[in-house]
């Protein structure tokens, strides 16, 4: 059972003026980062607890791998994507308004087939990562960025499916049982 208090305490501590502005001894700043990371991990636990409650109880649900967050996604690094030929990208919108935007994922292949939550294929865009100079030298950055258009309900989430296969597998997508995705 995830312990959100770890996250609450860490973010509460961050309201201190030393934390917000980074005006602290280096080791104190590292301690702030450590507490936030521990809180973040508890947050991921809660996400997985919630998803396991939302999933229908049948044998397939046991095969659902845990959700992971990529903390270095803003450096174009994501281990789950690097090690998975096919993966889900679940996008959470914490705003009280619906969100239409484009999300950028670190990507490690030149091929991508994207399916929207309703199973339909959608157009994406693949760009080479901008390395620019040696600023982020030594980091294991993905060679590409995959851009996906997303539509997320207010205070909601949506799951998109990504495959680096070049063609659709033999089992064509059968029409979905659900006409409209539940908001």
């Amino acid at each position, binding site marked *: 059972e995830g312990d959100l208090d770890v996250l609450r305490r860490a973010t509460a501590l961050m309201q201190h003026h030393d934390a917000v502005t980074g005006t602290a001894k280096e080791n104190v700043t590292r301690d702030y980062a450590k507490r936030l990371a521990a809180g973040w991990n508890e947050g991921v636990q809660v996400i997985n607890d919630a998803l396991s409650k939302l999933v229908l109880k049948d044998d397939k649900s046991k095969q659902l791998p845990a959700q992971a967050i990529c903390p270095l996604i803003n450096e174009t690094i994501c281990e789950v994507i690097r090690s998975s030929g096919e993966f889900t990208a679940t996008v959470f919108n914490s705003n009280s308004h619906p969100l239409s935007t484009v999300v950028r994922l670190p990507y490690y292949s030149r091929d991508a087939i994207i399916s929207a939550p309703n199973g339909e294929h959608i157009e994406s865009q693949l760009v080479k990562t901008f390395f620019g*100079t040696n600023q982020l030298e030594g980091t294991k950055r993905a060679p590409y960025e995959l851009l996906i258009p997303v539509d997320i309900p207010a205070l909601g989430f949506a799951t998109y499916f990504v495959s680096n296969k070049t063609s659709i597998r033999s089992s064509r997508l059968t029409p979905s049982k659900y006409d409209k995705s539940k908001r």
Partner: protein
Amino acid sequence: NAAMSAQQPIVGATVNISNGIIEVDFDEDGYVSTIKNIHTGQTTKMRQEFLYYEGAGFNEGDNQSSGAYIFRPNGTDPKRLSSNITLQVVQGPLISEVRQTVNKWITQIIRLIKGKNYIEFEWTIGPIPKEDKNPITKEVITRYITEIASNGEFFTDANGRQIMPRKRNFSPSFEYVNTEPVASNYYPVNSRIFIKDANTQLTVLNDRSQGGSSLHDGQIELMLHRRAFYDDHWGVEEALDEPGDSGKGLVARGIHWIIIDSPTASPKMHRSLAFELFHSPQLSFAPLQLSVEQYR
């Protein structure tokens, strides 16, 4: 398969990108030059530059150095960083972007996103260079330069929401003495800063609290990253000189959203977009071991 456009570096040529809502022109030196609102037809001259203030630095005595708790530039004019910028251009159905290489430790991506009425500036600063002997503190800013007749006035948010009017070289609560012409005109910018005249408003939305000001009419500056080499004697007892993961100095990366529109249209835009930036989507990932259909 998504088509991937070639990204050959461009030097000494004008460039233009558009998403059907906004058009951005770049001059031969690689700088942003004009912004066009395609719906209204309004074209605004705008230039964006990176500069840095050299911070005051004293080893001993009670002279005040620039440090963790205090910004004290040495002089009032920031140093320019580079004359011309190398560009790479990426165009596509969802995003068009221009990738700037300013120098060895500053790069930036200027992005237009499908359906969005703002320009995204994603800046990456660092490692800030450190001289071997008597290193000089450097405090890096981005400056957005327009012809808006802002008449010494600018506006910053308080706590991410209430907008506070600011007047250059003036304070509403004490008699202002101009001993620190730059630092005393800096204010906390937690979510937005803007300037305006009768026709045009330039609004900058930031993704984290930064110090910012409008030191000259038509201009907005925000401090993005700093590296200080002297203790400022306000209690940290350490210079603000974090080595970062590489050991050569911290690299900072962040985002500004630029809105240029009329003063009447801008408030509605920045009110909703500030929430959208603050509530940027959170992503989680998992390997997919079922078919899409089974997963759904």
